[in-house]
Structures are given as C-alpha cells and as structure tokens.
C-alpha cells in the first residue's frame, strides 16, 4: 500500500526536479499545481493514517535503526507537517500569481527558479519533521538553509543580497556547531538514531558539550533574542511569498529539532536552570521584538520584528515543562496545556504571519512601497487586504476569537498552573505591545487619504489568498479538540508519564 510518509517527501522533490527541468512558462503552472496537490494529498493520507493507527515508523533502504535511517511520524510531527502543508499551499497559490507573467514585479529568471527552490524547501521541511536520525536532520537543515538563502537572493536587490549573506553565514555557523554536537553524540553513543540515543543512559561532560553546541546552533537558526540579528533584514528584504515562507515555516523547523532533542535526547526537563534561561531569553525576545516593531516605519520590517517577538512565546515551553530541582514537575497537572499551547501558537503564528506578509506584498505591489505613511486610506482602496491584515493582527495579539487567543489561553493557564506567574506578566506586556504595533499599522489604513493618488490595480486572487490565511488563523481558534488529540498521538513530549 502507499506509504504516505515517503510520499510526503517524494512528491515535492518530484515537483522540484520537474520544475527545474522544464522551466518554460507553459509548464510552470501545471507542475506547481500538480506538486502542491500531490503533497497535500500525501499529507492528508499521512494524517489519517497516524490519526487511525497511531505513530508510524519506517526504516529507509531496508536497514533497521542503528545502521539505516528511520522515518518516524508521531502526533507532533504530523501537526507540523499539516501546518507546513496548509500554509505552504496557500503561499503557493499567491506565488502562482506573483511569479506569473502578468505581474511585472518579477523578472523571468526569478519566475523560473522560484518553484524548484520552494518545492525542495518544502520537501526538506517534511523530511525534517519525519526524520529520526540526527545526522539526517543536519543534512536536511542544510538543504533548508541553502534553499531559503537562494530564495532571498531571487529578488536580486543589493540589500537582499547582503541580508542573504548574513543569513547564510549565521546558518552555516549554526549548522557546523550542530554537526559538532552530532559528532560528540555519535562518539558517546555510537548511534545516530534519536530513539536509540534516548534509551541509553545519559553520559557526562561530552553530552553537556553536545547539548550546548546543538542548542545554541538551533537557537541561532530559530533567531532567539540575542541571536536574532539576521532575521529582520532577511525576512523583510525578500519578496512577499518568500518572506512568508521564511517567517511562518523555516524558522519553526529548527525549533522543532530543538524540541525533539530537548525532550528526547537530552532529557531537558531535568535541566531546570537551563529551562528558566531559555524562558528568560524568550521573554526578552517578546519585549524586545515588540519594541523594535513599534519603532519601524516600513510594514515588512514591522512584521519581521514581530516574528522575532512571537518566536519568544515558543521558548516559554522549556521552563513550563521543566522539573524543579526537587524532582517534581513544575506544572504538574498542566503539561498538556503547556505543550499544546506552544504548538498551537506555532500554528496560529504561521497562519497569521503568512497572511500579514502576503498582505504586505499586495500593499507593496499596489502602492509601490510599503512605507506605513503612504498606506493612507487603504481601508477604502484595498478593503479585503486591510481586513486580512486586521484579522491576522487580531490573531497575533491573541484576542478572541482567534487561534492566537487559544494558544495564549493555554500558555497562561500552564504558567499559572506552574506557579511561574512572571511569564504571565511578560505575555500581558507582550500582548499589549503587539496591539501597539498592529494598531500603529491599522491607524494609517483608516486615516482618509488627502490627495487621491493613482494606484496599480490589485487583482482579487492574491488578496483572497491573504484573506484565506487570516480567516484560517481565526477559525483554528474555534475547534481545538481534534488538534489536541492529534498532537498527543505517540506521546511526543515523553514527560507525561514521569511521576
């Protein structure tokens, strides 16, 4: 029978190679739509398979774990794959127009290379979420980095190249330190498979070294606060669909790997102090990112800085699931809330951020520049885009009825349950500052324009793509029952059963 796990990786790769081999204009649309369709189908098959028969595992090239590479799909990884699939396909729909011939925003070269790069990126994202081999994760991370940097350079502008270079160097540094960690782990455990390493008892200093290197490398690739320097220019200078892909999806991949290592390999919850450090860095990110976003004058930079802020929320999972030095879990009864809250935040942030970047793309296309001041009276000229930006803003702010609200609700419940009330303060201040810069943006949209300037027409499909994403980020907040059950299949966060 068709093994959906494999096809989740194969479908995008097939699409990529076809797109690379047949760069002609006539072929581009069918290949793109075909690839997106196939990938979505395989993602759907994988989800139903995992939903019905629990976590899956497949040994590649026939060899069992220690020698061969295993693909494992449990609730959390399927959740991330579904997120990537949904957001990716909608960004793809936007890109279909953005990189098509009717838009004059892109040259022919860009249009030819976008699809191969994006589909390989998509395939390797799925590969990361499925792989349970730390070296394989390294290679997949490298593929993602190169594809992402190549996508940034597509737009060809000078500052995009500089941003891409900075991102490449940072990511290269991160990968190398991750590889050093892998080497150390292999040296201590003699195996590369997550499950095998997890079963072996924890070694001493080498494991510490490995953890320090791998965690910092991945945090650098996830742009945690002090190491976020590369994200704002990279995400704001790239083209709209590319920055949406980067902010919504690529950043989450390295966070996913960090989570896998934290719970699986390094028994993270035992390291209470490290958990608190990561949580503090996350809170600093929330406040710093929001403050920076408040001070930006251009829309895409504002949204990029908001990404830096929102990533801070993700890192709150570490202190919440940590075990106090006295051994018992900090948030004894609330672990499910903490984990599901953070993963839900990842999902709703992906949807909302993608919607905002696509909206910013429409604004850039219609107004010619994304300076906030010349977005005057946008609510009259581009009602749907303003609506999409507003709803996405609502989800980012965590106001009901949105996905962001559900995530914020869960994280705050866990924080209060764990007695670590200071995270609640941070979330409160963060939420308000987010509201600050969202309404800073909306403020200009509502001011009636003084001189009616002549604008390029904005055709409907791209606005609808942004709107669809924004609506999804709100609708996701209405029904959490099923996603919760999906998330806990295969016990991805193995701290539940601990005493």
């Amino acid at each position, binding site marked *: 029978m068709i093994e959906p796990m494999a096809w989740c990786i194969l479908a995008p790769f097939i699409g990529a190679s076809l797109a690379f081999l047949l760069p002609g204009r006539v072929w581009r649309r069918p290949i793109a739509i075909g690839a997106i369709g196939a990938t979505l189908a395989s993602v759907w098959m994988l989800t139903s398979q995992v939903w019905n028969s629990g976590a899956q595992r497949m040994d590649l090239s026939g060899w069992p774990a220690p020698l061969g590479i295993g693909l494992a799909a449990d609730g959390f990884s399927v959740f991330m794959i579904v997120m990537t699939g949904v957001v990716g396909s909608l960004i793809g729909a936007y890109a279909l127009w953005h990189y098509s011939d009717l838009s004059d925003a892109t040259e022919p070269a860009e249009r030819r290379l976008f699809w191969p790069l994006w589909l390989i990126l998509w395939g390797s994202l799925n590969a990361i979420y499925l792989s349970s081999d730390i070296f394989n994760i390294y290679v997949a991370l490298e593929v993602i980095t190169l594809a992402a940097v190549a996508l940034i350079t597509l737009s060809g502008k000078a500052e995009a190249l500089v941003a891409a270079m900075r991102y490449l160097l940072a990511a290269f540094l991160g990968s190398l330190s991750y590889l050093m960690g892998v080497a150390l782990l292999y040296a201590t455990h003699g195996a590369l498979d997550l499950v095998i390493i997890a079963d072996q008892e924890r070694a001493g200093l080498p494991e510490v070294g490995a953890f320090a290197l791998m965690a910092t490398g991945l*945090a650098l690739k996830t742009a945690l606060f*002090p190491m976020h320097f590369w994200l704002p220019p990279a995400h704001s200078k790239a083209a709209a669909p590319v920055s949406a892909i980067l902010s919504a999806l690529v950043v989450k991949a390295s966070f996913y790997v960090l989570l896998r290592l934290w719970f699986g390999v390094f028994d993270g919850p035992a390291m209470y102090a490290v958990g608190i450090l990561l949580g503090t860095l996350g809170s600093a990110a929330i406040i710093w990112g929001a403050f920076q976003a408040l001070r930006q004058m251009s829309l895409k930079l504002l949204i990029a800085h908001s990404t830096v802020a929102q990533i801070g929320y993700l890192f709150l999972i570490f202190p919440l699931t940590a075990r106090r030095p006295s051994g018992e879990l900090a948030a004894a009864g609330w672990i499910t809330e903490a984990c599901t809250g953070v993963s839900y935040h990842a999902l709703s942030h992906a949807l909302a951020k993608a919607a905002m970047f696509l909206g910013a793309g429409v604004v850039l296309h219609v107004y010619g520049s994304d300076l906030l001041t010349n977005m005057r009276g946008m609510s009259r000229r581009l009602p749907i885009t303003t609506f999409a930006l507003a709803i996405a803003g609502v989800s980012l702010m965590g106001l009901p009825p949105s996905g962001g609200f559900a995530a914020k609700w869960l994280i705050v419940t866990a924080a209060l349950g764990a007695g670590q009330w200071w995270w609640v303060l941070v979330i409160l201040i963060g939420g308000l500052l987010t509201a600050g810069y969202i309404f800073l943006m909306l403020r200009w949209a509502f001011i009636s324009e003084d001189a009616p300037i002549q604008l390029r027409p904005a055709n409907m499909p791209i606005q609808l793509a942004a709107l669809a994403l924004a609506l999804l980020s709100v609708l996701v907040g209405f029904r959490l029952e099923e996603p919760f059950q999906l998330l806990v299949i295969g016990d991805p966060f193995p701290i539940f059963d601990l005493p």
Partner: protein
Amino acid sequence: MNHLLTLAILLPAIGSLAVFSRFIGARASGVVCAVAAAPALLLGLFASTMEHDVAWMLLGATFGVDPVSRIFLIFTGALWMACGLYSASTMRSDPRRSAYFFFFLLSMTGNFGLLLARDVGAFYCFFALMTFAAYGLVVHERGAGPRRAGRVYIVMSILGELLLLAGLIFAVAAGAGIDMADFASGVAAAPNQELITALLFFGLGVKAGAIPVHVWLPLAHPVAPTPASAVLSGAMIKAGLFGWIVMLPLGWSPAPAIAPLVVTLGLLGAFGAAIYGALQRDPKTILAYSSVSQMSVMVVAIGAGLMAPDRWPLILGALAIYACSHGFAKGALFLGVAVAKQAAGRDMLRRMTMMGLALAALTIAGAPPLGGAIAKKSLKAAAAGPESPSGDALALLIPLTAIMTTVVLGKFILVMAGAMRTNEGKSAVRLSPWMAAPWLTLTLGAAAAAWLIAPPTEPMTDAPQPTIPSLSAGDALAALWPIALGVLVLAITMRLARSLPKAPAAPAGDLLSLYTLASRATVAAGRRTRLPGPARWKLDFVPLVLDSIEQSRRGETLTNIERAMKTWPVAGAVFVMIVITLAAMIIL
C-alpha cells in the same frame, strides 16, 4: 365617581398636551384652563371617601378621596377655576400665552394629582410635576427679576424634593408601606423616626414656605403673573401642608423630639414674616410675606399636633378649615391687586374693590362675623387646649399672631389705597365682568368657607372630635381685641414712619442674601483649594504613556543597540557566550 376622579387629573393633563402641540388655538386654551378645574371642584363638593387602585402606575399607585383631601379639593378647585377663568381673559393679549396656559394646566395637573394620590409614589410624582411646571409660571415674564427668582425657586425646590425623596426612601426602607394609609404609622414605628420626620418636614417645608426654607416665596410670587401668583400662594403652598398632614407621624403615640423645634419655627415665622412684610412696599411682596406668616401659624398647629398626638384629630379639623379660608382669602387678595390695577380709572369700581380687599383682609385677620374667626377660634381651642403640653403658652401666642396679621394686612390695604389713588400701575386691560366675577366669588368664599364646610371627623379614633362651628359672643370679643390692637399699632408705626427718614427698603428675600453669600463662599473655597486628586488631575494618563513611546521612536538608543547587535563580531561573540552559559549552567 371613579370617572370624575380620573377626569380630574386627566383633563388638565390632556389640556396641557393639546396646548403644547398647538392642537387648539389660544382662545380655546383659555376656556380649557377655566373648565379643567371643574371636575376636581365637583369631587371636593360631592365625592364620598373612596379608593381607586391603579396597580400598573409607578410603584403601584392608588387614587382616592378622604375627608381631609375633600376640603383641600374644594378650595384648591375653586381657586384654580377662578384663576383659570381670570387668566383666560387677561392673558389673551399676552404674546406667549400658549406657554402660560401650558404651564398653568401642567401645574394644575400636578396639584390635583397630589391631592388625589393615596400612595407615596404618585404623590411624589405629581408633587415634582407641579414644582417644575410652576417654574414656567414664575419666569413667564422674561427679564432679570423673574430669572433670578426662577433660579432661586428651582434650586430651593430641587433641594426640597431631594430631602423629601430621602425621607420617603428612609421611611419605606424602615418598613412604612407605599400607600398613605399605613405610611404615617410606619414612619412613627421606624427606628430613625427623628431623621425621617425632619427630612419630610423640611422637604415639604420648601413648598409650604416654612421658615428657614421659605426664601424663594417672597421672590417668586411678585414676579409671576397675578393669577399664577394667586394660585401659587393660595393652592400650591397648601400642597406642602397636605403633604405634612398625610406623611408626618401625626396622631401616633411616640411624639418626635423635633416637635418643639417645629412649633418655635412656626412662631418665629408668624412674627418675623409679618414684621418683614410690613416693611415692604410692593403689595404682592407684602401678600407673599403674609402667606409665609399664615403658613407659619399652620406650622405651629402641626407642631402642636406632633406634640399632642391624641389631640391631633381636633387640630386636623381646625387646620383644614383654616387652610381653606386662608386659601380663598389669599387668592382673593392677589386677584384683588390685579383687579385694583384694572379698576384704577373709575372711582365707583375703585371703592368696590377697596371694600372687597378689606373684607378678604379681615377674614384672614379673623374678624368675628367672617369665617376666619371661626377658623382661628377652633385652631386656638384645638392647639392650645388645657391639657396639651405647652397649651397655655400657645393660648397666649396665637392671638398675638392675629395682631401681627392685622398689621401686615393693614399696611397692604393702605398701600393699595395709595396705589389706587395715584393709579400709577393702571393696566391697559379694561375690567370686564369675566375678571370681576371670579374675584368676587373668592372673596365671598373666604368669608363663608368656615361656616359652610363641616370639619372632617375621624370615624375610627375615639379622640375628641371637632364640634360644629359656633360663634358665641365671648368668642367674638376674644377675636376682636387683637384686631383692634393691630390697627392701633399700625397707626402708630405709620405716623412714626412719616417722621423718620426714609428707611431703606428691606430686600425681598430676607435670608436669601445669607444663603447666597454662604454658597458663593463654598464654591470659591472649593475652587481655591484646587480639588485634590482626580478632579484636577485629568486622569487620562494613558495618552501620556503613548506619547512617551512615540517620543522614544525618535530616541536613538534602541536603534543603536539593534544596529550594534547586527554587526558580525558582536553577533559571533553573543553566540559563543550563550554556548558557554548553557554548558556552565548544566555543569554547575
């Protein structure tokens, strides 16, 4: 009979709405004014005690008539009818007559409503309606005087209403029932009876013109058009009295401690107002002060009733009669002033009006053959009876008030005579029979009232019941000497006044100057002390916070740090630092 009851209230109400919506012309509204009072008068004359429950209205309203309110209905109805008739004719030339008729009818609704109301809610509702509508009458003639009078009137009456509301709230909270029947007993039984009685007394006192809170009366009555001031002085003041009778715990065992205070206030008012009235020059102000003094006499009666609960039915009967006769007389006098103005030209008419005025004045003063004497006698007998606590003191003081009344009214007659002779206030409108008739009826009514109307008897209580009025020779004599003495005193003072240099005219509202000074001082003090905290502090601190964030936008510190972090060496160093700290955290 029920329809008459509803008609008594609804007719004036619908009339006022019709006038407001210009549904009927000016002439028709005049007729409506005259007719509107009829049902109430008929009710007064013929209705027997009855009760009509209107459950859905306000707090569960009930309307009805009982012996006391019958008497009030009679003279109030008569007064409203007369004044309505009178104003229908005189007001025809007035440019803003529809406004006048509107407020006239609205006040009439209020007045009849509160007389017929048998529950506290309805009473208070119509009381407020009458108060606010009367404002329209007071300020009818535009100009500085009426504006000031209006402002004082509205401020005082609002304070009065608030005190009344507080009293009612405390009473109902303390268990007194909504409807009148068991309201007074509830108040009597209430623990904070003192507070409630005081609140009710002063709340209604504002309307009734009791001493400390009467200052609006001498200001408002003169400036209002004459028929309006006639009604104001005759009927509306009595509403306050009616309120007292119905609400205060009169006739219930524990006598409230403030009873002596009420009596002293009454006496003070009776003498003070009379003296102050004598010093005035404007006839209507003099009449206003005479009303204040007469009302103070009634306050004395109320005080006595509070002090001697068991004698209350006796006092009640006398009080009703006294109020009735005073109502008629005061209405007649006020109309008389206007009639005198109109009749200034022809001496035959002049003589007739002077005669009428004298007759009305004598009724109030209590001259023997007229109704006033009976009223005064019964009042003296009831209030100052042998076994009442301060009976003997009262026995002496009440005749004294009679003297003072004669002095004031004498001064009024003299001033009117003077005015008639010099005919300086001659009004353009010719005296038509339509104007003279109401005045005449009122004067006769004043004289005959005491005789005709049987005092209300309390069927239930076994306390001594008021007897049918009879005037023996001894009584007549007892009534005459105070009048004589009063005339003597007046003559002496007039001669003295001619020799002394012109005494400066005492300002109309005597205590008012005190109050305005006090209020202005508090407001100034309030402003000077710069009300601490919220009032001064604009309290919208949020925009300040916002602006500070806004300014920080221009502040360079944040952007410098961000740019510094972007440089490669710093970023690299940060990376290494974090690796080291993570490792150190685990090892240590």
